[in-house]
């Protein structure tokens, strides 16, 4: 059993709960124990750093301080979310690089009775831990349902392989870790050229047309390569590509239906875990048709349908073209 300190991050509890559920389900076969940081706070995503530097790093570092205090054996802090992983790693790295930043952050932490010595934790992403600590041999030994015949586009997004302060990834622009993992699960893995291109991040909220173009490029490429689905490791990427796919379709008059799921969900399926425990059905673009092609049945969430029109027995009213009378 390998034990790690665990920082889930806000998305895992809400928009990316499928990621959380599936991660919890594959802990046992992988032999990992996750010790969640008690009373952790938001990492500030990509927002706080643009408002004010010292408070932004103090916010991130409260988590580092709590994690270090809680560390019992393992000094490795694992984050499954890309932005959380980068923020935690960045704060630790920059505080080592700049003693002035470390001094200021520690002065702020002191107001809450906390402190953190930069470099006293190792911050890693979940995929890195699975590939490099657990190992693909162990993963392979747990596969009972190979994903034979499922064409997947591996999509990592930006903030895991870049800027990569500790040089943990095979490449900053074209890393092979996710490809290797998915091949181990038996899937047919597309050599996906846009695998670390940007999903638009928070641009859906600030400049939607910028975001829609970035989303379109990714979905279009996956479609061109005839992917059954896209596999990601980042809550923000999944949210943008999945939940904003309809808006993007609307914006460009396209009609893509590309499911986007988390790599941990596919690991669960390959390990023979009940799909109900893996967060399926939470994706907006239904993944069930793609997975039924390899004989896996996953739950589907029923969309609330259009309201039924009442039988028109009143006075004749003007109608919109296309409106039909219910008899």
């Amino acid at each position: 059993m390998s034990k790690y300190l665990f920082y889930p991050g806000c998305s895992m509890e809400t928009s990316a709960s499928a990621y959380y559920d599936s991660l919890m389900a594959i802990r046992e076969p992988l032999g990992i124990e996750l010790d969640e940081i008690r009373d952790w706070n938001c990492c500030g995503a990509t927002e706080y750093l643009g408002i004010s530097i010292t408070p932004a790093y103090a916010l991130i570092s409260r988590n580092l301080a709590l994690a270090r205090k809680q560390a019992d054996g393992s000094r490795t802090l694992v984050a499954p979310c890309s932005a959380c992983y980068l923020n935690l790693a960045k704060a630790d790295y920059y505080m080592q690089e700049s003693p002035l930043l470390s001094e200021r952050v520690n002065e702020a932490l002191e107001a809450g009775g906390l402190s953190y010595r930069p470099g006293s934790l190792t911050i890693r992403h979940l995929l890195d831990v699975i590939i490099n600590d657990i190992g693909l041999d162990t993963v392979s030994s747990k596969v009972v349902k190979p994903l034979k015949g499922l064409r997947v586009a591996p999509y990592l997004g930006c903030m895991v392989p870049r800027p990569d302060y500790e040089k943990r990834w095979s490449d900053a622009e074209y890393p092979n870790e996710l490809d290797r993992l998915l091949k181990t699960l038996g899937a047919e893995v597309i050599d996906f050229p846009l695998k670390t291109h940007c999903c638009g991040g928070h641009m859906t909220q600030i400049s939607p047309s910028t975001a829609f173009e970035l989303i379109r490029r990714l979905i279009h490429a996956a479609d061109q390569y005839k992917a059954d689905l896209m596999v990601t490791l980042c809550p923000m990427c999944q949210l943008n590509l999945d939940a904003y796919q309809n808006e993007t379709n609307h914006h460009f008059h396209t009609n893509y239906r590309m499911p986007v799921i988390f790599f941990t969900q596919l690991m669960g399926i390959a390990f023979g875990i009940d799909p109900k425990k893996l967060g399926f059905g939470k994706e907006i673009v239904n993944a069930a048709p793609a997975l039924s092609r390899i004989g896996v049945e996953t739950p589907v969430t029923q969309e609330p349908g259009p309201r039924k029109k009442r039988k028109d027995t009143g006075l004749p009213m003007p109608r919109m073209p296309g409106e039909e009378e219910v008899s």
Partner: protein
Amino acid sequence: MTLTAANPVDTNPNLRFLEEVSAATAGVSRLEMCIQCGTCGGSCPSSADMDHTPRLLFAMIRAGMRDEALRSNTPWICVSCYHCVVRCPQNVHIADVMYTLKSMAIRAKLYKDSTAPDFSQTFVDMVENYGRSYEFGLATRHYLKHFAMRLPGMAPMGLGMLTRKRMDMTPTRIDNIEQLKKILARAKELEDRS
């Protein structure tokens, strides 16, 4: 910062802004090392929507064009994808310089469009009050203010997220919010003093 007597022969006063940006950046910015090669702009997925490419913006900073640089939409259009950062031959911490320019523009109230600063500020307000992000509150508040006309179009997506339990209607608060508030209050004092 301690004030030193002005150099009687200040050979290049334009460099003061470059020094200010560099000093305000977390870690070591290496902004002084820029060789104006343009790899950053060429690598940028959103440069088409920027007023200035990162290369041009850095040239403006070096020329002391403070107001123009802080008015540029470039830092706000940066998606923090770090493509430029890993490709920069001089290892300039470009994404972090963009964060610095945003915070300086907010302080100087020099941005042109308030959509992006408001979004960041609303996000930060939620985090400062709850210790967690609060997507439902953030999205509704932000959309009402900036994209009210788009709200009806976004409704199906919001409903889809709610029916799949991917969005909470109410915020979650951390236990020791008082501790976080004290830390952030102290951090803000330190930031204002710098």
